[in-house]
């Protein structure tokens, strides 16, 4: 009985903290229409600040708490709203999600920069772990009492705010009809800012409360994900109802503790199940949610993508293969392997192009589908032993097929719902997979087979081999991956240009109108999700083979998010965006950070600066992601558009081509280093459109100013006036004063 009571109390305490976190999420979602994926990251950042004040600077708890919850929390929320979120009104759901994902990543990178993950950070309970009361044989710590009281107070306070107060009513109205609010003399932006400030405060409070009750260790990634568990509670309240959110949070907290109390503690299963519970609940809620009403295009998106013809895609694919081959000649063996890894990421990125760019749906865990394919390929496709072992094509294909199948199963319950729910379902799946499957090191017996899903917590994935094509050789691997990328890209271009692609575009633009033409939307979404999962699976197996050894971390949620963000920043509607975004995610950031790290080690004096630069690269990419609301087409597209405008500047293009060829020869003969070549070539590629514009402007100088701009951009001269009179057929006034 005491056991039961103890775990019940612990469950209620955990539920209280989940509720505090979830209520903040519900609050911001209801006033701004933005589902804040960065909620956990805000909690994490606030908690680190609290740690900094109390532990590093030794300030009293009450002062630190006052500053963190009373000042830093609201300030963070208000700043986020003012700087980023208010600009997202009228953008696509996908853009909103990506921007909050970028905030999540940026905050995590920033926290890891300020508070090194190599040091241990611990947060103590309020009043210390020893301060407690004993009720009916059950020990309750003061900290736990604080959690319970805070949750009850917040639940009551929010209820009053939403139903009784004027500010709360305005908040609720600001997402439904901001214009109507404005007409009635309210400021919807002020209401939204207030809710962001409040939501952020609740996140921070939840962070400070949850760390001590879940062990006391403070880790940026862990805490961010811990608060994400509260998503399930918020979903239980359908992102609307505070009382239902409270119930969901309590169920979650209790379930987590009962699992711990009553399931066998041997093996890894119970612990893994406990961690996965919120995600399992999230999935169940998704399955039972009633179908959404079909909507038309709620917003007129600004995203517009030019569709390449199959022939153009094939030409560019050939160019890509040639360029990659020429470049690989310059690289060391290590460089070739890294490049090959990047190319496998680019293949995974293509799965996002078709899903998000073409169909407007989201997958927040593309790497998880890569993991599914890898596990299947590992168990069915590894032939031979030791160094002679290889991955058979059969295993590879089986992995891809299972990834597609699992993708379909994961997506199916969420497809009846809005895009946000598919994003959440994929996230739940990714978390579930990394906790339950990729940590599953125990032996299973099924249908007479004995197997271990993830022996020793890591898999050694040998390179694929098909007949004479052996991918053990680095260059062969790189070229095979590149050719595969090009082939899939051409396939996608063909898909997009055909009837299937038109149907996807129609569904993305207006689901209601597409359904009214007889299209079964669930079937179409399911098919595109399965195609996407298959591509992610193929890329995933290749990625694993490129790594050689993969573990749970290779498929982490944060890794998936950063890949997605980089692809969006580069341009998710374009194959070029997938290439650049994938390469950046696979090699770019890690190579740059490692390079800066090496430089920091080499030159001690400059160490701090190089170290800072390395971190700045990461934070910088996240900043780019936050700005994606303003330029949803992505930056690669901008560069390409710059080249499109340069068709007239042939001498410049030929000159640049010759310069590039010369540079390449210098690099090939070892006169200049590979890095020098890469940097100079990159600079030329980026600068050329700028030069081109200057060149073209030069030629345009003599063209006459359009008449309606006379006197605006140019001084209003006598000559212009005479021309105006002439065009308008007026008698020339200058000399006409007498003539009239």
């Amino acid at each position: 009985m005491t056991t039961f009571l103890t775990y019940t109390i612990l469950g209620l305490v955990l539920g209280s903290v989940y509720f505090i976190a979830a209520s903040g999420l519900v609050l911001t979602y209801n006033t701004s229409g933005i589902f804040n994926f960065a909620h956990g990251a805000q909690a994490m950042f606030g908690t680190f600040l609290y740690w900094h004040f109390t532990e590093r600077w030794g300030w009293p708890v009450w002062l630190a708490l006052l500053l963190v919850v009373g000042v830093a929390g609201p300030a963070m929320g208000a700043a986020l709203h003012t700087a980023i979120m208010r600009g997202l009104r009228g953008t696509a759901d996908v853009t909103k999600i990506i921007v909050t994902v970028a905030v999540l990543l940026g905050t995590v990178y920033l926290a890891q920069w300020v508070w090194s993950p190599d040091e241990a950070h611990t947060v103590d309970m309020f009043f210390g772990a020893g301060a407690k009361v004993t009720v009916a044989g059950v020990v309750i710590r003061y900290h736990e009492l604080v959690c319970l009281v805070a949750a009850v107070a917040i639940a009551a306070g929010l209820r009053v705010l939403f139903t009784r107060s004027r500010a709360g009513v305005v908040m609720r109205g600001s997402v439904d009809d901001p214009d109507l609010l404005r007409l009635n003399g309210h400021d919807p932006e002020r209401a939204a800012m207030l809710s962001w400030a409040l939501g952020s405060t609740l996140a921070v409070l939840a962070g400070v409360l949850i760390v001590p009750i879940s062990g006391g260790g403070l880790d940026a990634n862990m805490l961010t994900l811990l608060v994400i568990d509260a998503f399930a509670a918020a979903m239980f309240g359908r992102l609307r109802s505070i009382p239902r959110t409270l119930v969901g949070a309590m169920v979650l907290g209790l379930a987590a503790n009962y699992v711990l109390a009553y399931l066998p503690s041997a093996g890894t299963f119970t612990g893994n199940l406990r961690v996965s519970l919120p995600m399992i609940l999230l999935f169940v809620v998704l399955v039972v949610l009633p179908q959404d009403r079909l909507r038309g295009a709620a917003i007129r998106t600004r995203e517009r993508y030019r569709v390449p013809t199959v022939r153009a895609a094939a030409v560019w694919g050939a160019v890509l293969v040639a360029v990659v081959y020429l470049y690989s000649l310059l690289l060391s063996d290590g460089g070739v392997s890294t490049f090959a890894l990047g190319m496998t990421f680019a293949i995974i990125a293509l799965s996002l192009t078709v899903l998000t760019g073409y169909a407007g749906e989201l997958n927040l865990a593309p790497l998880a589908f890569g993991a599914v394919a890898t596990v299947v390929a590992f168990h069915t496709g590894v032939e031979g032993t030791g160094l002679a072992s290889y991955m058979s094509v059969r295993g590879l294909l089986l992995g891809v097929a299972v990834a597609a199948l699992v993708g379909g199963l994961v997506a199916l319950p969420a497809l009846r719902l809005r895009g946000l729910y598919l994003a959440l379902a994929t996230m739940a799946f990714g978390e579930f997979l990394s906790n339950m499957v990729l940590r599953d090191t125990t032996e299973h017996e099924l249908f007479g087979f004995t197997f271990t899903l993830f022996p020793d917590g890591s898999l050694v994935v040998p390179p694929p081999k098909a007949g004479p094509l052996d991918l053990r050789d680095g260059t062969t691997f790189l070229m095979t991956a590149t050719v595969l990328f090009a082939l899939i890209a051409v396939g996608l271009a063909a898909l997009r240009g055909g009837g299937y692609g038109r149907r996807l575009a129609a569904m993305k633009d207006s689901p209601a109108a597409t359904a009214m033409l007889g299209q079964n939307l669930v079937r179409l979404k399911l098919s595109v999700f399965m195609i996407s999962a298959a591509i992610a699976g193929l890329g995933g197996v290749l990625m694993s083979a490129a790594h050689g050894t993969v573990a749970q971390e290779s498929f982490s949620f944060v890794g998936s998010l950063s890949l997605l963000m980089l692809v969006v920043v580069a341009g998710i509607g374009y194959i070029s965006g997938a290439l650049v975004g994938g390469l950046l995610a696979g090699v770019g950031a890690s190579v740059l950070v490692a390079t800066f790290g090496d430089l920091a080690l080499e030159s001690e004096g400059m160490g701090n600066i190089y170290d800072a630069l390395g971190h700045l690269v990461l934070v910088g990419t996240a900043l780019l992601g936050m700005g994606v609301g303003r330029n949803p087409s992505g930056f690669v597209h901008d560069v390409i558009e710059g080249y499109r405008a340069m068709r007239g500047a042939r001498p410049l293009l030929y000159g640049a081509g010759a310069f590039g060829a010369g540079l390449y020869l210098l690099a090939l003969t070892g006169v200049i280093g590979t890095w020098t070549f890469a940097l100079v070539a990159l600079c030329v590629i980026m600068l050329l459109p700028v030069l081109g514009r200057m060149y073209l402007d030069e030629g345009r100088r003599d063209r006459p100013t359009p008449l309606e701009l006379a006197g605006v951009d140019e001084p209003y001269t006598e000559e212009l006036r005479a021309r105006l009179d002439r065009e308008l057929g007026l008698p020339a006034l200058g000399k006409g004063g007498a003539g009239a």
Partner: protein
Amino acid sequence: MPEGKTLLETRGITVRFGGNTAVDDVHVAMAEGEITGLIGPNGAGKTTVFNTITGLQKPASGRVLLDGDDITGLSPSKRARRGMARTFQRLELFLSLSVRDNVRVAGDILRSTGRERFDLDERTDQVLERTGLTDIADRDVSDIPIGRARVVEVARALMTSPRLLLLDEPASGQTEGETAVFAEMLTGLAAEGLAVCLVEHDLPLVMKLCSTIHVLDYGALIASGTPAEIRESPEVIAAYIGTEEAAHE
């Protein structure tokens, strides 16, 4: 009164949004080969009736019958496959596609279901020709004037070779000339046996085209009949001219 075979019928549909009753026990019918009008002041529930007929809105009670079959529980796409097509008051064009592709995609959908085989390009050209859109076929659909954008929605609907065509304010935003051409096209479609239902504020147009008119006010059906009957109906006059006289009585 209707002479063609009744194709679609609503039996006492009622729709509630929270506490508001947007549509209250409405019975309307649409017959093959005829143009039926659905009119009423703003907020009378016309679009909600359309949404209920097409399955975008579930009624709180009442039934929708197509060919005498109860289709109240069917999804919008299934209803579309049974010959229903519509346009939207708030335009729902596919903004990333050209005018031609907006029309063609309806054929893509039709072909993907495997119900019909036809030459897609030929059929697209025919529909564009018939609706007078050939000259702007390759323009971006977001760049064309609203009057013609409405015609694109009609062309898209026609591409599915519907038996019932529901048009939600198709003439708003059209110039007088465009409306005249449009009216002629509708008459032609009805003559081929298509059942057309028109929600429209342009009363002279409705009076001219429709053989039967249903009048909604505050969600309730206040009159049904021929244009002449509607013109004489005291309830309709009260609803349109205002309730002052009604209040004085």
